[in-house]
């Protein structure tokens, strides 16, 4: 890992791992929207960052000029040998049309509202158990003791993995998500235990079949053929990675908001019917996920001279703060009625787990504020935000008020 110089101008040298961007990206994006609105960088081998809603949505829907074969900005580009084309390493998120539609169709029924709603009682029981364990201490950690435990338990259940691996799960997520600045060699080495763990789980499901998403993937047939092993492995890795720190970040950010905005907390406690609109505003305002594409070929696009294999950082959180689409975009309005946010992306790559994420977020907030109707940040300086393409608070100590 190399030490990089701090960014002086994000318009010509953006870096989403720069401490300024990690701690508070919103003023940076506002400035870029006014000045650029597409920023450039030579870092990571070259890339672009549209800061407007229009720029982000245009790229998100364009699968002709951009490829999803990798969606995490890093120092290397995947070589041809790393791509079991046309599947991509983690279908369907890394797949392009036409294969994408097949891979997505396989995945969606398991994550549609029906099966997701059936999981709600278990998620609620999990949240209640975590809150019981947190108890009546004056200070509890809404991040490390609560938010971070919810999605791994849900995903583990979905995939049918053995109990007790939550810590290992978080390590895996950390390796994948927060190591973007490492070299390709480091990345390959770091990824070895992840691969080993998954291969073991797949073998176990082959030997001891059960009713879960892993066995569904092992059995499902497309035009009479079972899925390739790489496809099964990739979709499982995707489910794990995309289903954990994303939702954990959303839950944490929402609790961070309530800990810093007593008037919103009070309204939500007193007017529980606000919850559905409040959830959408949490998702808009604190959208955790930024995606990426690679430019397919040299072209002039959004007024920029893009080159083949340049990165395109797809900032859904930035789009959600664009004042040309959202009146008072930088204001959190808990009962915002019209809210066309793009926290889950849009177009063919809309987050496949959005129904699950929303349910987890809603239940986690409902249970937390039921147990602790009044709380505030215990130590604003102690709150840390995860760097990289998934942004949310990790350490979140809050003081429970009487």
């Amino acid at each position, binding site marked *: 890992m190399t030490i990089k110089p701090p960014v002086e101008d994000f318009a010509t040298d953006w870096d989403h791992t720069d401490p300024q961007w990690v701690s508070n990206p919103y003023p940076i994006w506002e400035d870029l929207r006014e000045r650029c609105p597409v920023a450039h960088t030579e870092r990571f081998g070259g890339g672009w960052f549209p800061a407007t809603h229009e720029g982000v949505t245009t790229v998100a829907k364009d699968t002709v000029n951009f490829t999803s074969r990798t969606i995490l900005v890093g120092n290397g580009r995947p070589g041809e040998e790393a791509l079991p084309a046309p599947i991509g390493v983690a279908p369907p998120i890394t797949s392009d049309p036409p294969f994408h539609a097949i891979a997505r*169709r396989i995945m*969606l*029924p398991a*994550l*549609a*509202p*029906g099966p997701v709603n059936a999981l709600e009682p278990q998620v609620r029981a999990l949240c209640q158990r975590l809150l019981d364990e947190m108890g009546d201490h004056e200070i509890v950690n809404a991040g490390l003791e609560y938010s971070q435990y919810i999605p791994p338990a849900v995903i583990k259940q979905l995939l049918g993995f053995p109990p007790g691996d939550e810590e290992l799960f978080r390590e895996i997520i950390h390796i994948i998500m927060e190591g973007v600045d490492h070299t390709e060699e480091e990345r390959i080495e770091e990824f070895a235990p992840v691969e080993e763990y998954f291969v073991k789980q797949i073998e176990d499901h082959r030997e001891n079949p059960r009713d879960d998403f892993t066995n569904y993937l092992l059995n499902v047939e497309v035009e009479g053929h079972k899925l390739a092993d790489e496809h099964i492995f990739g979709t499982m890795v995707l489910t794990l990675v995309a289903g954990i720190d994303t939702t954990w970040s959303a839950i944490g950010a929402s609790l961070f908001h309530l800990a810093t905005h007593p008037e919103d907390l009070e309204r939500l406690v007193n007017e529980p019917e606000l919850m*559905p609109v409040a959830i*959408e505003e949490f998702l808009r305002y604190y959208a955790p996920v930024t995606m990426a594409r690679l430019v397919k070929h040299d072209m002039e696009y959004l007024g920029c001279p893009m080159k083949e294999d340049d990165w395109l950082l797809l900032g859904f959180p930035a789009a959600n703060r664009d004042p040309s689409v959202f009146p008072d975009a930088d204001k959190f309005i808990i009962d915002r*009625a*019209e*809210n*066309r*946010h*793009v926290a*889950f992306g*849009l*177009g*063919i790559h*809309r987050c496949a787990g*959005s*129904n699950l994420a*929303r349910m987890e977020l809603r239940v986690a907030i409902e249970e937390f504020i039921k147990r602790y109707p009044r709380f505030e940040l215990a130590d604003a300086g102690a709150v840390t935000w995860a760097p990289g393409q998934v942004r949310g608070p990790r350490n979140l100590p809050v003081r429970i008020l009487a």
Partner: protein
Amino acid sequence: MKVSIDAEICQGQGRCFSIAPDIFSFDDLGNGVVIGDGTLTKQNLDSARLAQSNCPEHAIFIEEA
């Protein structure tokens, strides 16, 4: 007045059927579908419009009589 969802545009964002469950439902992939023939009354026109103005994909169309 009638409401419809363009299935080519809908990506299953799930906003319509949570905002207006009396007008919209979902299929087994989680994509939005209109319940019945989509005829709107004076009573539910507003909630159809609200769902429309929350669809990130702009997939909902209301045909005013």
